[in-house]
């Protein structure tokens, strides 16, 4: 398998090169573009590490949406007044600390125990009882359901934090960061043709998550990206932040998760336990609601804080 090793080495070098580029690029835009390329290649690494679930998340979220957000910020940075670099003393100290951390971690990687302790067998062994085929989904929705539940609340919280950055007078308006003034025809065409296909793929990713790589986070991310595409071209309008409907959608996933979890007290014998025989449908219901909530939350996170009610501001 030396060819595989060579391919992996090439991949690792490419990634390191892009990371260095991201750190030293002269313009912020260049650095962000380097980072997006980096994210895409990291998705390939996840494939090489046999973690396709993660690769899907990385491709959609880590490279796609993150790059989108960062590029938007890069374009709005002030052009002048570059910040002063810290003094050489701090840089030296930081360099020493970082190098020490990196070297220590490298040593740890080389010294990891020969017999890798793992929970993989336990996670796989309990899957049939849940009716699932994808152990990652089993971990996310059953064994460690509490993490996922809190995680979906974190997304809502991030959105509240984002909205709280609005100006007082703008509260109740629509998010306005995405609308571009005069989208080019090619972009509009893309926003007309791609979203239906994206919806199919998004729903498919959620649905297949039960048996194969995929799941609510991946599906929700694709759906959010498609929504953002239509927002950018003005084909759809973002909802007002005061609306109750959009908030219901945002909490639908965590709320259903919580409700089924509480029902588990009586039906499954414990909080967040699924009654035997009903695990799969309940898990799929939770995943469906989560997909929807995640899609709305991610889309609104990209759409930015609300702007005043009097139409979009350029």
């Amino acid at each position: 398998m030396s060819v595989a090793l060579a391919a992996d080495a090439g991949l690792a070098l490419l990634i390191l090169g892009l990371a260095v580029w991201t750190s030293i690029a002269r313009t912020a835009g260049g650095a962000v573009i380097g980072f997006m390329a980096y994210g895409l290649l990291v998705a390939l690494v996840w494939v090489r590490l046999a973690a396709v679930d993660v690769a899907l998340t990385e491709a959609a979220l880590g490279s796609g949406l993150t790059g989108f957000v960062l590029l938007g910020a890069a374009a709005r940075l002030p052009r002048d007044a570059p910040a002063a670099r810290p003094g050489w003393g701090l840089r030296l100290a930081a360099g020493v600390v970082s190098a020490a951390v990196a070297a220590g971690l490298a040593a740890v990687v080389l010294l990891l125990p020969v017999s890798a302790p793992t929970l993989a067998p336990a996670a796989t062994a309990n899957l049939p009882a849940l009716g699932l085929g994808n152990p990652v989904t089993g971990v996310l929705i059953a064994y460690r359901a509490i993490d996922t539940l809190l995680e979906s609340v974190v997304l809502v919280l991030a959105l509240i934090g984002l909205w709280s950055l609005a100006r007082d007078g703008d509260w109740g308006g629509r998010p306005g960061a995405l609308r571009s003034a005069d989208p080019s025809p090619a972009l509009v065409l893309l926003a007309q043709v791609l979203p239906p296909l994206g919806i199919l793929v998004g729903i498919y990713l959620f649905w297949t998550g039960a048996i194969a790589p995929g799941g609510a986070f991946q599906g929700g991310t694709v759906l959010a990206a498609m929504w953002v595409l239509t927002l950018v071209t003005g084909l759809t309008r973002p909802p007002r932040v005061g609306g109750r409907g959009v908030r219901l959608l945002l909490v639908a996933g965590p709320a259903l998760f919580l409700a089924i979890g509480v029902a588990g007290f009586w039906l499954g014998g414990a909080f967040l336990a699924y009654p035997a025989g009903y695990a799969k449908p309940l898990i799929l219901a939770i995943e469906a609601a989560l997909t929807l909530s995640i899609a709305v939350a991610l889309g609104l996170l990209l759409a930015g804080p609300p702007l005043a009610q009097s139409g979009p501001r350029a």
Partner: protein
Amino acid sequence: MDSLATLASATWGGPLLVLALMLPVAALMLAFVLGGRHAERVVLATLPIGLGVAVAIAAAIIHQGAALHYDLGGWAPPLGVSLHADGLSATLLLTTAVVLCAVGLYARADFRVPPGVSEARAPLAFWTLLLAVWAGLNAVFLGQDLFNLYVALELLTFAAVPLVCLSGSPQTIAAALRYLLFALMGSVLYLLGGALFYGAYGTLDIPMLSARLASGDPIAPAALAAAALMTAGLLAKTALFPLHLWLPPAHAGAPAAGSAVLSALVVKASFFLILRLWFDVMPASLTHLAAQVLAALGAAAILFGGVLALRQARLKMLIAYSTLAQIGYLFLVFPLVANPAAAPILDLGQTPGAWTGGVLQLVSHAFAKAAMFMAAGLIAGALGHDQLRGLGGIGRVLPMTVFAFALAGLSLMGLPPSGGFASKWLLLSASIETGQWWWTLVMLAGGLLTGAYLFRVLAPALSTRGPPLTLVKPVERSRELVVLGLALCSVVLGLVPFSSFGLVQIGRLGATGIGLP
């Protein structure tokens, strides 16, 4: 119907832990969906229930004399995640609930939806974030799984950062950004530590990890790296010197109620995790070494924070720097508990006094600092500013507020009769008992510094000379009472005999790592 899991275990009262964790989460979602004026109502309705739950948990623990435990989803660790509350957790849950109740009552006046609109930005954000802080804190205090605790920490970060910049001024935005970057770095390092633990021992469950660390002969290098990385990350979140840069501007710029929550509770969460890491996870021999480093940093923080607090011109900045110093005291617990000299006490089946002292410091500082920030908020609201040099004679205009501030100060200085006195007394005597007199010097110097900077506030405030002050805005009596209540809490702690702090020891004695085996 049968549960799918077979190995699940839960103690009587275990569902209370789920309730404590999920009540704020459910309330958060409800408040967010209902919005507008309902958000405040939801919070004010939930807080007493949460307080009741915390009391019930403490009662259950005292009644049973053992910790509560609950396996979520019926999946036992290491595959599943469990919740766990010992006496310390219960104490902190209770403290959190009391402080948040006070903050909720206090904040009503600041975060009312103005008439004429159905919803406003700051109130919605504040009330939902308050619930989120609560959820995050409870999750941290109940967590038993390193990754679950990571999610809890993130929940806390996402709740705390926007609280800092609710006013929207450029200074607070910059402060929030700095806080966020520090907090993120901290969580990433913590996560890396968790990953390494998992890689070395195949579990994230704290008791299992501790058992495996104790049984394996040589400690894996990964575990050492993990502990170091986690500690560094958590120190950044706790704002221990020299990773404190973010704290003063963040806490000083937040609204008074927000500062109270941040200073009194949020920074304690990451301290609590450091405590758990070194006393519940790592073997005692290592803890003994790390304790010296941690305490040295703590001592530096006590002195450095005290000196900087002396030099502040604004009341809120002074209180923020005071937090820096008071956090330092917490870290003195490490060498005082994890010390060979403390072993005989453990053999007698008792927890070292330093342990009780540390917990008492945590709790009394929470009450005192929340009271101080809220008192400062009242003063700033009444005067329209919080410059120290403009405080002359404020004691005549707002006697109750200044009295509350002074009471809280009493506790910070460690003067009797106060919780601060009891805690510092316990720490002092422990340092002498274990032959570590140098920490005694630090504590005494810290007490002097605290006295000095509080004198800078109280002397002009209580002076009777000078022209009478004019208030920009009247102060509501009810808010003063809330502040006074909290300050009294911090004092009353010192009047209770030490023996009644048995709660903080329940569930700790059997745990590995406290002192030497």
